């Protein structure tokens, strides 16, 4: 954390004014708050004009919610990093926004300090998984890994497609600790690896989460579409 050159510039997107105010006061002094937006349209406009580093994004908003903001920001080119923030713990919501491109997901019950930490982490290009999200991922990637992955000695994701559809034992172990409420540095300590390695594992899981075609993930995506 000492190596962070400057506090990240943050845009807060949420349709509840009270909540925006709350997040703002929690983050004040911890990060640089560039502004806030209450609708999908505003958010897309502000992202273009303010060019924030990180967007704190509410999953549930009228007109498509966080997923729509990410989609349109990406279409504008040079999108910021997104950290999804929601009170919803429904797997389909969480997975949808992650697969749209968010680099992390935290629940709104998170403390100000933890939130600031998560923002910094996302700013640095890492992934942020709440215990709930870690649980969803474990659930989605549960079951025996595909046979071809086993045959390929799939402990280390080699980047080929089957590797995307299962987690390595190490990644699974890291996720289980996240789900149990451990912080990155605590996990590093327990597993005897560096915090950077833990971050690398989580980023790898994020990538799989975004690119994998596992049945569970697409099923959640479909359910999400039905809900909307």
């Amino acid at each position: 954390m000492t190596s962070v050159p400057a506090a990240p510039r943050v845009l807060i997107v949420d349709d509840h004014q009270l909540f925006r105010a709350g997040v703002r006061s929690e983050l004040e002094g911890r990060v640089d708050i560039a502004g806030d937006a209450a609708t999908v349209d505003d958010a897309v406009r502000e992202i273009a004009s303010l060019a924030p580093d990180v967007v704190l994004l509410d999953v549930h908003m009228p007109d498509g919610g966080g997923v729509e903001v990410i989609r349109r920001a990406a279409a504008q080119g040079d999108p910021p990093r997104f950290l999804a923030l929601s009170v919803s713990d429904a797997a389909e919501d969480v997975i949808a926004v992650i697969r749209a491109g968010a680099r992390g997901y935290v629940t709104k019950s998170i403390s100000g300090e933890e939130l600031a930490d998560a923002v910094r982490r996302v700013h640095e290009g890492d992934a942020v998984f709440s215990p709930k999200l870690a649980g969803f991922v474990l659930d989605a990637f549960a079951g025996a890994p595909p046979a071809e992955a086993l045959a390929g000695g799939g402990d280390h994701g080699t980047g080929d497609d089957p590797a995307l559809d299962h987690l390595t034992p190490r990644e699974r172990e890291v996720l289980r600790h996240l789900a149990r409420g451990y912080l990155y540095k605590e996990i590093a300590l327990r597993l005897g690896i560096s915090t950077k390695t833990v971050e690398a594992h989580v980023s790898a899981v994020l990538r799989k989460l975004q690119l994998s075609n596992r049945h569970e993930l697409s099923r959640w995506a479909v359910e999400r579409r039905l809900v909307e």
Partner: protein
Amino acid sequence: MATTPAPTRPGPVLRRDVEHRMLGGVCAGLARHIGIDPIIVRVAFVAAATAGGVGVVVYLLAWVFLPAGDAPAAPVWLRTSRGTIEIAVGIAFLALSVLLTFRAFGLLFSDVIVWPLVLVAAGAALLWRQWLGGGLPGGTVHRAPERAAPGGDAAGPRPADRSAAGRRPALPAAPATPADRAALVSRTSLGVALVIAAGIAFLSATGSLSAARDVVLSVLVVAVVLAVIFFPWVLRLVRSLTEERAERVRSQERAEMAAHLHDSVLQTLALVQQRSDDPRAVAALARRQERELRAWLSRRAPAAGDPPRLAAALETAASEVERDHGVAVEVVAVGDADLDAPGEALVAAAREAMVNAAKFGGGSTVDVYAEALDGEIQVYVRDRGPGFSPDDLPADRRGVRESIVGRMARHGGKGEIHSAPGAGTEVELTLPRSPA
């Protein structure tokens, strides 16, 4: 809907409840009683009415003597657990009994009329059912248990809700698989054959009657046959109207959901503002609301008779501990398992651990992680409190420790408590999974 005469107008009425009965609700009541479409009963009555007017008399008598029932416990649309053929046979018997009733009234009915009418009834039941959402036997059965749950949710007692809920299952009727389609085709042909056979049987049996009567009856029979065969197309028209209405109902439900969300969220926000000086109360309020909403959104309310499940039991325990101790308890469950006796012991031990963590964890969030995957169930309960050295376990916590570790051991599992000063406490529970 001017396509059918008033008393026989079965289309939209079918989709409705008592409030939309046609006349006195006799047919609807009868249909509900035996668990079939009211339309079938109505057709039987109308057939009886055209054949001598006795149906009218019977109907009026029933109207007078049958008490007005309470709102039905389950909409008639939920009866599809019976096979279509079974229903057709049932209808045939129904028609038979109606005709026998006529005879009991001393009205002149020969067997010549009785049997063809019975055949027509059976054929009609076969033909019409698939146009009324019953084409897929069992297709809507899954709705029945939750509707039938006694003393159920708020959706139960209100007629408006019931009619809305009752209409929904009638919608998806498209055959899903080739097998379903084949069954549909064979049912249709069987129905057509039955109806035609009825017409022919009737004509040949009455061939000896006077010519005048022959002509009238032939025309009548042809008309009936045509009506029976083409009724589905009329119904399809009615059906598209019904789907429109169902769409309205759906958007209404969506609005209702939005209203529920806003009410609860706004109310909690108001309470949070009022009690902003008490962080614990605020947190408890918010979390209770959160849980309630989440359960409501995912409609996870377990149906009566469902076997208890591990994840749900842990959620319940967590929300109780949260409520009693004012500490947030976060449950993450991966996989799930039915709760047998050892599973219940596991939940009880986990609950002890949560209470312990809430009491001694210094107010930190309690993280509960349950994993029910291969071969065993694992539950971790973790707090970020001051922790303790295992060597000098506080005396007041020894009993709790026993109730966790000992309990697990008694059920063939394992309980371990990991703690160190300054590093919080984690209770690890392991239970071998009983083979399914």
